[in-house]
């Protein structure tokens, strides 16, 4: 019997097999996406117990554990709560494409809400981004009921 040569260590690729999913958005996120697609409007939900407004809207307030039925329309403007400028490329599992870098991941406190909302920021130079700066959404012309119906948020001048 020949000895197994240590240097022959193989790796086997998983292949191009797809495993697609189709997630139900539910009533709340469907309303959120439809408002974006049809009215270029962001909406949140308000908890009847703690009165906090949350975006994206959802069925249950995690803190109070009660159902929220009140939908609140938002102006879309907000202040930057935190951000990071991402420099490393990786394959986005949803698109199968490399994310273009650099891109700025921004967490924004939208006016009228009590949480933060994640999206892109147009500015990618950290020296030009300031926590607290005012931002607003830039809407795509062609919208399909997707988070990226907003292309990104951009600083409000002045």
């Amino acid at each position: 019997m020949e000895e197994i040569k240590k240097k022959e260590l193989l790796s086997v690729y998983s292949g191009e097999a797809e495993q697609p999913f189709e997630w139900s958005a539910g009533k709340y996120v469907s309303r959120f996406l439809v408002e974006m697609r049809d009215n270029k409007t962001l909406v949140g939900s308000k908890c009847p117990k703690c009165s906090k407004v949350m975006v994206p809207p959802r069925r249950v307030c995690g803190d109070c554990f009660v159902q929220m039925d009140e939908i609140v329309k938002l102006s879309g403007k907000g202040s930057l709560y935190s951000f990071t400028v991402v420099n490393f490329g990786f394959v986005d599992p949803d698109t199968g494409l490399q994310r273009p870098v650099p891109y700025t991941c921004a967490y924004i406190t939208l006016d009228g809400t009590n949480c933060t909302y994640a999206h892109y920021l147009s500015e990618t130079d950290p020296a030009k981004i300031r926590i607290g700066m005012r931002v607003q959404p830039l809407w795509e012309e062609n919208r399909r009921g997707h988070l990226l119906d907003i292309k990104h948020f951009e600083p409000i001048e002045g």
Partner: protein
Amino acid sequence: MGKRVAIVGTGQTKGSSGRKDVNGQEMINEAVMKALTDAELTRDDIDAVIIGNMDHFEGINYVDTWSVDGSGGYMKPIMKVTTGGTTGTTVAMAAYYHVASGLFDKVLAIGWEKNSESDTTGAIITAFEPIVDRPTFAGAVGGLALMANRYMHEFGATQEDAAYVAVRDRRHALKNPNAHLQIDITIEDVMKSPMIAWPIKYLDMCPRTDAACAVIFASEDYAEKICPRPAWILGIKNRHNFTFLGDCALGTLLSLEDAAEALYPRIGITEPLKQFDVMELYLPTSFAGVQWIEALRLCPKGGGPELVNSGATDMGGQCPINPSGGVLSSNPIGATGLLRVAEGALQIMGRADKRQVPDAKMALVSGFGGCNWSDLMALGAKKPD
């Protein structure tokens, strides 16, 4: 309260960027064999197995069933536990619960990961809400960068303030033969390293590692017969945070703070920095190393940089943090938390070799999942009352 439980043996494989010589199950077997040897037990002595990793890093679901040959679990009860980054500490907690219940005497906990087998960041994203969170999320690094940035904003800390954590942990790793990274670096090296996700630079960030860790838990009826100086579990707390990262405050690690607030009074801790002799904390970035120790009340809010840069948490200091080199030196994610438990136990057991803190009697161990839930565990040399 249940039966008193102690750790009586540990085993780990040396961290590597790619263990091409083993598949996952074989690597698990290496760690299990080492733990059994350390405890002078055989596979037949084990009553149950708890095993965990992050499934999508290897694309093999149900590791519990797939790894049976290597884990020693043939014809034994096995449970898989997977909680993201905290998997390793949660696996330890589940093993503890099994023994504390009085239904199992000796339980084997296994954590492992072969990060080399997938694109880590692409895989981590699948842990997040698919419709509204994923499109912009940037993996663990992104979430950690957002926390670091908010912390700097709220407390006026700088990148330089945090950099020493990376220097400290990597220097400690030089004495740990199992550490993946063994590099001697300076603050200047950290500041000059490439920016990955602002403000986190390459040397601020933990590696991706292949490794496995196994820890054996025994009840009070067996622990002292198996091990001359077992590491007793004094207390455990864990806390989860909201579904959406956007709902979580980022300036403070609230889940760790809450866990510490619940744990400390239970075990008589009022001054953690003084009362603990050593800590093995899940700190995946240098910024976490200054921000999250505040959640543990080692110092006031905003005081992390001063404490760390004083040297108080170095080997030889008042309370060494991460003599093993920590997560910044080895990060086999499913094992990372369990390595904190194992390293904390090694300190109490007096088996930490060149990285031993002299006369360590009380150890604090933490786990973190991004973003951002926490596990906390206290280990001690003295059997609880």
